[in-house]
């Protein structure tokens, strides 16, 4: 069966995860080689995941660690 774009979109996340059987993966790759729209969907999705995984995107509030350990120290003291 030839895959259409909609089939590819539904598998794109598993494709990125490398969680597809080799036959389906090969058919998706064949589709991607000929469909620039789906290739752009894949590239843009991957790029977005790459950017949100970067530690600069979601940072800890300033002083978070210090406050956490100070509270822990207090907790340890009160448990004595």
């Amino acid at each position, binding site marked *: 069966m030839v895959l259409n774009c909609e089939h590819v979109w539904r598998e794109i996340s598993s494709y990125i995860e490398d969680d597809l059987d080799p036959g389906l993966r090969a058919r998706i790759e064949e589709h991607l080689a000929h469909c620039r*729209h789906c290739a752009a969907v894949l590239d843009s999705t991957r790029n977005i995941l790459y950017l949100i995984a970067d530690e600069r995107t979601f940072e800890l509030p300033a002083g978070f660690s210090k406050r956490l350990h100070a509270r*822990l120290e207090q907790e340890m003291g009160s448990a004595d």
Partner: protein
Amino acid sequence: MTQEAEARISTLPTNDKPSPEDESGLIRRILDGERELFHVLIKPFERGVFLSAYSILQDEADAEEVAQEAVMKAFRHLGSFRGEAKFSTWLTQIVINEARMRLRAKKSGRFESIDAAHDDESGDYTPALLADWREIPSEALERKELREILRSALEGLPRIYREVMMLRDVREIKIAETAQILGVTEGVVKVRLLRARLMMQKKLAPQLKARSQKPIWSIFKQRKAGSPWF
């Protein structure tokens, strides 16, 4: 904090997660009375604990409070940790439960938000269609504007998708562990991930594409060294 504790913590960088053997050794020593070592045990998981709470509560102050509460709970109940799951899984389960309880308390007496309308996991799987994609390198994250666009897109997702994306795509926790933390099957995690990723692509790709054509972003030519999981 005592100087001894500070010295111990300072020797362990935030992302330096101990091996499972080191971790179980640390836990044993804490339970045997070296309680100060809990500072060391918790250090690599601080960011993850905060982000997991934040993905649910979407308020920095609430997320910090809940993250602290979860860590205190983990400290008080460390003796009940059986080691069947990883310590980080157990800890994240605690923080997610705490955050959900806090959210329920905040919402009590109010109508359920639009989150509930998206809990059925059915519906649209259509991405934004583009003719091509020009990669945005991680160096562009030096720009606050880009970080804010990314954060706000994730924050705009319904809660079940934010939770799964924060665990898998931001914290890079494996799918099986993500399922264990959320108390759902791996299949459910995969469906939610697909929807979350397509929603993010649909929301962000056109915006980012338009901005990436501005000269200010195109000066970032080189990709950061090192590869992420995907």
